[in-house]
């Protein structure tokens, strides 16, 4: 027995070459374009994170501004944000900094591994989407953390990351970040113009979605003509949902052509974007951590506007404290709050184009036409209006607010256009909100960079005021 055991153990050192089993060793993970495509889907999966399209680009911008408010039953959700009490500390972190860079890392994994494969339409299809996701990541970072959105701004933007390295980068200027975003988006558009197969839209970004993103970025950069051109290319290739389809679009029952890009949440485990907006655990007692502000709810034509009937609940009749509740994301298949996040829609393209027109001389008529077209599809019996100048600009901004509520726009639109946050009496009356107005110029309009980053990376310059 002793000799037997000696024999058994003679070559034990070789047994140390254990290959991990639940994961793929890097050498074998990506050996074909099909593998590269699974890595691309890994980048898409990042979009489900809290700091991206599970929360930070869905309801957070509306809670920071004036569309949503802190309900009496709110146990803490976004209260720091709604009161503009945030610091660089961990309590205040919205996760966008970390999550967007994970998205960028995973997009870079696809882009850098693509070099190993021959060029062609299949590779174009994969790499084109990865470039678009990298641009989306950089752009969403700018939206929260850059002090301004000017195309030529030399203010600190965010570090541009196009390949993996363990480094401590400093912030590129806003202008340099725009350079990278536009460069990635145009490369993406070129690649997606020559693909081997149709991209599964709207779960993934096809050429139409990339153009829509270019339109949005151009609007922020105030590249008006580009915004008009890209929006036009999308509008000509898509349609607005009609009144009948509109409600179904929100319950994810209907694959509306209006949806250009959505982030798919397949099950509750993957995230519930709407769980804080609508709670019907007790059917007689519908509540929300973040109800719709009454000011916002009362903007709609309650009789004729399909948006009101599709997603605004008048809770007053039931005698509950939250007067209005948004049920844009009330849940599908009985799963409360389970919805796909709507990232890009055709209606936004009309609003982008209309707003861009108003910034070009003599284009108010074209702007009004877009606004009328959108309203006509949302309001039954709508009669075209004919506004110009400031009235037109304000009407477009108002329509934007009504159309895109809780889709991650309001805060950035105010930042972009230089608007104050002025909340109504509900805010003042609530014990849970101590601050109700935020005026242009306040440092709180720019979100602080998380302390974890500042501690780990001394080259990062914190935003003013934190």
């Amino acid at each position, binding site marked *: 027995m002793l000799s037997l055991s000696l024999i058994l153990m003679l070559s034990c050192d070789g047994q140390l070459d254990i290959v991990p089993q*639940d994961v793929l060793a890097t050498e074998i993970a990506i050996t074909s374009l099909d593998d590269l495509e699974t890595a691309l889907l890994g980048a898409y999966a990042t979009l489900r994170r809290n700091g991206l399209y599970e929360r930070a680009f869905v309801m957070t911008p509306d809670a920071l501004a004036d569309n949503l408010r802190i309900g009496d039953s709110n146990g803490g959700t976004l209260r720091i944000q709604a009161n503009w009490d945030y610091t660089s500390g*961990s309590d205040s972190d919205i996760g966008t900094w970390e999550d967007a860079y994970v998205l960028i890392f995973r997009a870079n994994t696809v882009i850098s591994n693509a070099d190993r494969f021959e060029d062609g339409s299949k590779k174009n299809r994969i790499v084109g989407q990865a470039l678009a996701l990298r641009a989306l990541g950089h752009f969403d970072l700018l939206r929260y953390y850059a002090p301004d959105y000017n195309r030529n701004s030399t203010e600190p933007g965010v570090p541009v990351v196009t390949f993996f390295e363990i*480094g*401590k980068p400093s912030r590129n200027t806003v202008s340099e970040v725009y350079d990278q975003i536009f460069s990635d988006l145009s490369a993406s558009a070129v690649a997606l113009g020559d693909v081997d197969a149709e991209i599964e839209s709207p779960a993934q970004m096809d050429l139409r979605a990339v153009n829509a993103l270019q339109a949005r970025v151009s609007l922020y950069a105030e590249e008006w003509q580009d915004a008009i051109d890209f929006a036009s290319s999308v509008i000509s290739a898509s349609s607005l949902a009609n009144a009948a389809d509109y409600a179904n679009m929100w319950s994810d029952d209907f694959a509306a052509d209006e949806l250009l890009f959505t982030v798919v949440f397949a099950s509750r485990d993957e995230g519930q974007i709407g769980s804080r907006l609508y709670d019907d655990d007790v059917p007689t007692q519908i509540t929300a951590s973040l109800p719709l502000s009454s000011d916002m709810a009362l903007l709609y034509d309650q009789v004729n506007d399909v948006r009101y009937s599709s997603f605004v609940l008048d809770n007053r009749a039931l005698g509950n404290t939250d007067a209005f509740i948004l049920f844009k994301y009330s849940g599908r298949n009985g799963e409360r709050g389970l919805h796909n996040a709507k990232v890009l829609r055709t209606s936004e393209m009309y609003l982008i184009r209309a707003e861009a027109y108003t910034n070009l001389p003599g284009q108010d008529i074209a702007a009004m036409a877009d606004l009328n077209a959108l309203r006509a599809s949302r309001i039954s019996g709508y009669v075209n209006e004919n506004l110009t100048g400031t009235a037109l600009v304000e009407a477009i901004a108002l329509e934007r607010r009504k159309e895109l509520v809780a889709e991650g726009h309001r805060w950035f639109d105010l930042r972009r256009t230089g608007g104050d946050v002025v909340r109504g009496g509900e805010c003042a009356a609530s014990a849970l909100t101590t601050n109700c107005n935020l005026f242009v110029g306040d440092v709180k309009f720019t979100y602080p960079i998380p302390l974890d980053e500042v501690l780990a990376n001394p080259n990062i310059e914190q935003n003013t005021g934190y």
Partner: protein
Amino acid sequence: MKKRYKLLILLGLTLVISPVFAQNKIVKGTITDGDGEPLIGVNIIVKGTTLGTISDVEGNYTLSLPENLTLVTYSYIGFEVQEIDVTNRSVVDVQLLDEASTLSEVVVVGYTERDRRKLTSSVATVNSEKIERVPMATFDNILQGASPGVLVQSGNGQPGTAAKITIRGPKSFSFNETGGALYMLDGNQITAGDFAAINPNDIASVSILKDAAATSIYGSRGASGVVVITTKSGTKGATKIDYHAFFGVSPRPDYNDGLRPLTSAQLIDLQHEIGIGPTVGLPQEQLDELRSVNTNWLDATTRDATIQSHEINLSGGSETTTFYISAGYFSQEGTSLRSRLDRYSLRTKVNYTQGNFSIGSNLYLAHTDAEDSEGEGNRNPSNPFYTSIRNAPYNRIIDPVTGEYALPLSPGENQNIVERIATNDEDRTINQVVAGLNARYKMPFLEGLSAATQWGMSLSQRDNVDYLDPNSVSGQTVQGGQGSLFQSFTRRVRFTGTNSIHYDFTVGDDHAFNIGAYQEFIYFNGKSTNLEVFGLGKVETIAGGAQGTDDNGFIPSFGGGTSESALSSYFGTLDYSYIEKYLLSAGIRRDGSANFGKNNRFATFYSVGLGWIITEEAFLSSSSFVDYLKFRASYGTVGNDQTSLTDSRSTFDLTSYNGQNAIFEGIANPDLKWETTTKINLGVDATVLNNRLNINLDVYNEETTDLLLDVPLSLTTGFDEQRQNIGSLRNRGIELNLTTRNIDRNDFKWTTGFNIARNKTTVLELSNGEPIAVQGGDILLEEDKEFGLLHFVRRAGVNPANGLTLWYDLDGNLTEVFNEANAVDIAPSIPKYHGGVTNTFTYKDFQLRATFNFAQGHSIYNDATRSLYNPTKVSRGSVSTNALRFWRQPGDITDLPDPQKIGTYSNDSGSIEDASYVRLRNVLLSYDLPFPMIEKLKIAGLRIYAQGQNIHTWTAFTGLDPENSDTDYDADYPSLSTYTLGLDVKF
């Protein structure tokens, strides 16, 4: 050897007394000491009587005793008492052993055993007497206060939860839940959880190896200390049967003042004052009714729990074969409703020796069936200890109208925790096997040369079932709204194989050598599978789950994983002693771990220990003050490979998007290598005052370098941290152990054991010298600073003018703005001193033993109490009576801010509490039935006892239990207080 001429007077006395009694039988003999010299004046007593005699100047004695009594005790000061059965014997010669030789007990030091006198290393032992009869599912708690430098923190009353055992301070920056020590059971590596679950009555001894000379033999695994457990074996002779049983109760816990909730009336008033909460706006009639409810949620979720244990063992053997068999049943309820544990265990141990060959096998089987209290240690509504301080007292348990469980007034925020406990389950079943086979062959051609092999397997299989009843409130909120059942299977298996060659020899009369050469291979494999099904009907198993469709939400989910590791080692030991006075021990071990990259897998660890028994020197050997004195010194290195395979191997993980498979890359560090601890230990062992005082003193310095540390990365990399070998820390400390025999008379004895240890951990070096926040920012590591200081913004109080909280900024100025950048070090989270005192009193057949243990000089961030101060939670439920101190109007001097102004309430130093404590850990009162009664019962022995565990704690901490190993406290399940009655019968 000195002749002894004491107690001659007693001799005469006894001779006078003895003829008084009727005599039926005479026993004669001679009494000598270890060297064969006669002992004069030895007390010889017939057990259970006052009959007796003493030996004469020649050591001779003649005892007369009744025919029916056969047990005789022989005692003499400075010598061990012997008890001899004189049935059918008329001549009984007795050799009494010097009590100093109790000190030279055999100590298990890992792969071998050593005479304690010859140790050069620092080893603490806990013998079976202290371990037996522990009224707990986890006997590791008994190590509390038992040995210096061993900090045991349970802080959790869930039956079956392993304690955290830290030996000589933390060795890594991570706050490892189990403390990181290595556990060896009869040569097999086991987990901390397995260790805790061993039947305490099966254990012969526990050795705790501390310094390099003791631990370096475990190479890469010994850095945090090693706990070596040896189980009982059978001995030659007639078969003995022992039966042990005890029964007891653990009373339910009560609120401390800091947690005591408001009454319903107080809470309703407060909600109205602040203007939020579900009672605001209710009609007066309903309010009046709610005011009268006053549910005590802690009472409703706890109970007086019961405990019982039965154990029987058989042991014995012939000249060639010995055996030990034990079977046990242990059952304990927790004080939290539903929590309980039942364990069935079986152990067998067989040894066979024939000539030069010996073989042994041992087997341990255990089946544990337990239910957990949900959400233990979480600030989560499912944790009854959290919810019981969070639930509003105006909520009812049972609706008086319907007779069913009542819904809370605001169901979104509160839940009926009693309903949750009653309708949902968390079951776990654990099956454990530890099996070992060992063999040794003494080479016939060379005296002292032997070869040995040892093979072992430890297997544990765990089956967890979490069930949410479809009709329960929580069961209706899961996907599909019709309950869920989560089942997981985990199997872990570890194989250990060790081959060794030993050579023991002497050169001349003076030089003694023990040499050992070893080869070892360890392989670990763990697998887990889990499944969750939805849409349950009446069948409460996986089979009861419904088929999932896109519409019903019942789609099952699954998960699982595997993990593997391996260790391959070669090592050698040398022990040398010169005239049993100068001692040298040395060890060297080369380990290869699969957890590191190819270039860094192997490392070599070594140690040297020196000992000098000064009392063997001529100048001290005749001292009447010092009986025994030894100096020890050791130096060496030990390693740590506690990291996972994927930390050094770059890999892609799996996920999915839109129903399709997806992958993403993780971060690795191919350069990862061993963490190494260099240990220096100096020690003194002394026995003085005629063996009345025993002293062990150790000082040590341990420096850990190449620490495996998760270094924070710039998030722009796509990762928050990477494991690197960066940083070093130092543990420096002193340990003192005293054992005294205060009174040592025939019928009354009093002994005291006292130990205390001071350890200080200092961070020496960090990645690039930059501070690192750990423990969720509770602690900031900085170079040249003590490790484990709680790092928070200092709360200064409340501004009497406006009710806003005031903090200090870094410069000490008052500010109303909370900013984490103003955080400073407040207080240590690791005890400065800890130790224990045990007093044992023996009077005739009674014994009373009391153990206190203490930990001093540390603080805990009391997160549970903190959340009770939070005025924004008023709407949720029960804030504590602290709420009565809220600032109300200008001029109020108080420490809690205006509840109307949120944002003035933050995580700051105000919730840091001194967690020093002294705990009356254990009191045991036992009575051994005297001999005549035993004989009537026709048994070999009977002991009955009463015991109390965790009887009282003196502390300023306001949470339920200060003995918490975390830096923050989240309403943990408090340690149980247990009172038991038991008996031990020997047949």
